[in-house]
């Protein structure tokens, strides 16, 4: 047990601290998490089957009414689309960053990271302006003669995907960048010397070795997007409701806390299940790559 804890906490450089001092160092954070997160979470979730008496009614309601499943599925679909979107857009940026040094790297990294400093609300409103009926996008498309009349962009699922992809992009770029940065330069050189053209180096060396970063980015973006609230609400409208809005509605508008708690519990459970599955698939991939 002790050895395992050690390996878990220390990674490669084992046994610099004893288990006791490790726990001591972690204690402040653990206590904070326990008091401010795990306890309230447990309390909140317990309401889903404790109120008014011990019951599974709330879960039965979720299972009965297809609207809940629809919203849950839409939420996961949005998460997946946003994760794939950020991957497609983010990988080239991360790759570019991994080839840069010095001030060029600083400039590109700043471009990637700076939007994080701007509030999500502001960035969402910016998309409202861009995508509106007389927004920049519609005006440009009309000006170019591609469309005759303004297209409805706002209050669609597409608007939600677009804005969330933009907002969550850094969470994809940074982990991929960090794993690309860890690939020694001489690996791609040696692949070239062994006869690999540039696309082959990318396919056989760089992509497989960046998988941990890609996986981390996918998980991050997917999980964060499941809880997105403001952006879907402002850009999507009522017909594209996501689960965070639903929980909020149940808790603050309908004051049905047990129901809100039950939906949250389902979301938590499904998310953990997906993560576990993902983890297994990824492990399998690695084993196959190595075996």
């Amino acid at each position, binding site marked *: 047990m002790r050895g395992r804890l050690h390996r878990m906490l220390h990674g490669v450089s084992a046994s610099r601290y004893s288990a006791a001092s490790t726990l001591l160092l972690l204690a402040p954070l653990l206590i904070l998490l326990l008091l401010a997160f795990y306890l309230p979470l447990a309390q909140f979730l317990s309401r889903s089957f404790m109120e008014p008496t011990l019951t599974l009614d709330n879960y039965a309601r979720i299972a009965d009414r297809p609207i809940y499943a629809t919203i849950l599925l839409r939420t996961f679909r949005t998460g997946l689309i946003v994760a794939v979107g950020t991957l497609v857009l983010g990988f080239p940026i991360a790759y570019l960053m991994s080839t840069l040094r010095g001030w060029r790297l600083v400039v590109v990294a700043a471009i990637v990271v700076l939007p994080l400093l701007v509030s999500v609300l502001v960035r969402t409103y910016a998309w409202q302006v861009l995508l509106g009926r007389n927004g920049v996008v519609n005006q440009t498309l009309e000006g170019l003669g591609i469309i005759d009349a303004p297209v409805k962009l706002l209050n669609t699922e597409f608007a939600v995907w677009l804005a969330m992809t933009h907002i969550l992009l850094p969470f994809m770029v940074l982990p991929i960048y960090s794993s690309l940065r860890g690939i*020694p330069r*001489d*690996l791609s*050189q*040696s*692949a*070239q*010397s*062994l*006869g*690999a*053209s*540039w696309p*082959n180096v990318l396919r*056989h*060396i760089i992509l*497989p*070795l960046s998988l941990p970063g890609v996986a981390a980015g996918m998980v991050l973006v997917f999980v964060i997007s499941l809880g997105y609230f403001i952006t879907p609400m402002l850009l999507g409208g009522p017909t594209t409701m996501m689960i965070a809005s639903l929980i909020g509605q149940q808790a603050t508008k309908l004051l049905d806390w047990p129901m809100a708690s039950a939906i949250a519990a389902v979301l938590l459970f499904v998310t953990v299940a997906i993560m576990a599955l993902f983890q297994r698939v990824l492990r399998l991939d*690695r084993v196959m*790559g*190595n*075996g």
Partner: protein
Amino acid sequence: MTDSTGQALADDTGMAGAPVSVRDIYKAYGSVRAVNGVSLDIAPGEFVALLGPSGSGKTTLLMAIAGFETPDSGEILIDGRDIVPQPPHKRGIGMVFQRYALFPHMTVAQNIAFPLRMRKVPKADQQERVERALALVRLSGYGDRRVNQLSGGQQQRVAMARAIVFDPPVLLMDEPLGALDKRLREEMQIELKHIQRQLRTTVIYVTHDQAEALTMADRIAVISDGLVQQFAPPAEVYERPTNAFVAGFVGETNFIDGTLERAEPGSWRLRLAGGPAVALAGEEPSWRVGAPARMAIRPESMRLDGEASSGPLLGRVEETIYGGGTLACIVRITDHVALTVREAAAEGRLRRTGDEIAVSWPAERSRVFVT
């Protein structure tokens, strides 16, 4: 050039190395001239060491041959064809990198099969050739191992097998043994040399270790400041260095500075600053009376308390260093000159520090460079 029919990787197939011609290669980074006009003609199947200190330009030259650096001017011919315009993956050159550069997400066999896969060699042939390459580097049965399960020496062999499995006519090696400990390095030197003889591949081998270059190479190109200082077989580089840099860089050397003087026609001497003069053998066109010069002489060419055609220089024993087979004795001649004399330990007597002693040497073993 590359035989993709599944045969080869052995010495009975008629495969052999290609001639390599480096012609007037220049490469500058900003104001730093890394390679400053290098030309080398390398015969097919020859093992050439590029020997020089770090920053001498030897690695830049190697990278230019591999295709990872583009020379500012000059040609690199393999088999008579200029390869400078070709991208690295089309050059068909094998390369072993300093830190092996094995692919961590592949097994040993997958690593070695990689160049064959890139050349679309049929699967069955791939397997056979991987097996033969593994046998050649004495790693049969290790194909399914993961790369990070291997020791440094084993990784080195895998890198070697991967670089030769596609029968490249030219093999480049960038300090391939630098990361190994001394004993393993010496073992691998002999083994690499053995493999190279078997394959008859042309090898260009970058190293900063002069002992390694002397042991392995057919010819050594001593490089410094982006220039080839000398390009000759090891014995010649060691015995007859063309300049003071080569004399100092290859092997141990005593330097004695002085002024050239001529006692009578054809009989030259070097006078030490404010001290005695020592006899020199022969004559060189560059020698002028009164010219400052630097004499180089190997520690093992010198004798203590013996009779020889040059010297003796008198001094005091400053230190004796026991080195197993040899015994080194440092003799202080003047404030500026201390000589190291190396004797076989069996012959040499242990000298006491402070003893007065005479150092002499056969005049023809010294080399003199006008400075």
